[in-house]
């Protein structure tokens, strides 16, 4: 039981919060939970794929390959791969965090992971929609700046998180 509490503190907190809310304001709690179920089913295919892809990576992919492509010595090329991957991806970045952890365990560089998460804010597929709402000039400039930011973010995180590991 205490092991459960240690591994899932956030989840237990959320469950308690939801229970309190159900008694206090059941309409909104039901709305919130049905929203969560909705989001989960929408992203189910991604969540399943990520889980099994990480399973395969942690069992199969040799660390040398990961290190070579997105490891610390991969240099700017690795960062660019991370940035492009992030810009193309969809859904919330945190769905991919467990996959990133497996990649880090296999030798991926923190710099590349931070760049990928940064470039997540570039939403290539959403540009038409965002442009329709906010104007293309705004959206294109915005995405360009985010792409530049993602490279900076990678270097800042790499600087602070990797210096002492080697």
């Amino acid at each position, binding site marked *: 039981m205490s092991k459960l509490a240690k591994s899932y503190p956030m989840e237990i907190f959320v469950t308690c919060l939801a229970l309190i809310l159900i008694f206090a304001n059941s309409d909104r709690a039901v709305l919130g939970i049905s929203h969560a179920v909705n989001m989960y089913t929408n992203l189910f295919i991604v969540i399943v794929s990520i889980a099994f892809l990480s399973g395969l990576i942690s069992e199969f992919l040799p660390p040398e390959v990961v290190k070579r492509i997105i490891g610390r010595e991969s240099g700017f090329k690795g960062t660019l791969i991370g940035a492009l991957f992030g810009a193309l991806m969809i859904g919330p970045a945190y769905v991919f965090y467990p996959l990133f952890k497996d990649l880090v365990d296999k030798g991926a560089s923190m710099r590349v992971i931070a760049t990928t998460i940064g470039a997540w804010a570039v939403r290539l597929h959403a540009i038409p929609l965002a442009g329709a709402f906010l104007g293309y000039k705004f959206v294109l400039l915005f995405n360009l*700046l985010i792409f530049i930011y993602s490279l900076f973010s990678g270097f800042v995180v790499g600087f602070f998180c990797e210096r002492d590991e080697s």
Partner: protein
Amino acid sequence: MSLRLGGFIFLLTLGFYILVFFRSKALFKRALLRGAKNLIRNSVRIFSVFVVIGILQSFLSKELVGGFLMHFSGIKGILIGALIGALMMGPVISGYPICKYILENGGAVGLVSSFLFSWVMVGLVALPLEIKTLGGRFALVRNSFAIFSAIVLGLIMEALL
């Protein structure tokens, strides 16, 4: 659109599994088992994030957030935009109408930029998940730099547009 890319990732994973199946049955089994374990663990974690988002969203309506943000402008607006954006979760697509509403009512471009940026980049709700998977140091550095960048980005956008 999102379904199509999700399907692509799914097919890619399936393809890898088929390849592995023909190379080594033992490896295939191990990967499948690990994947199933991952699925259960990730689902619990991700679903709890979704519950928080769902509850927050039922409290924070578009009109409420848009109306609140409209009162600010200049550097203060950019700061508030970045902070409120950090609280907002869920698909950023639902942020576009809010921002359209703010811009149409004379709100500042800088505020809208910092708000949208920190919405995607800073996740207070997903923070425990980030700490658990990628470490506290990573989460702290990445999120602090993201808040800082939201402000810089807001200033640049305001100056350019």
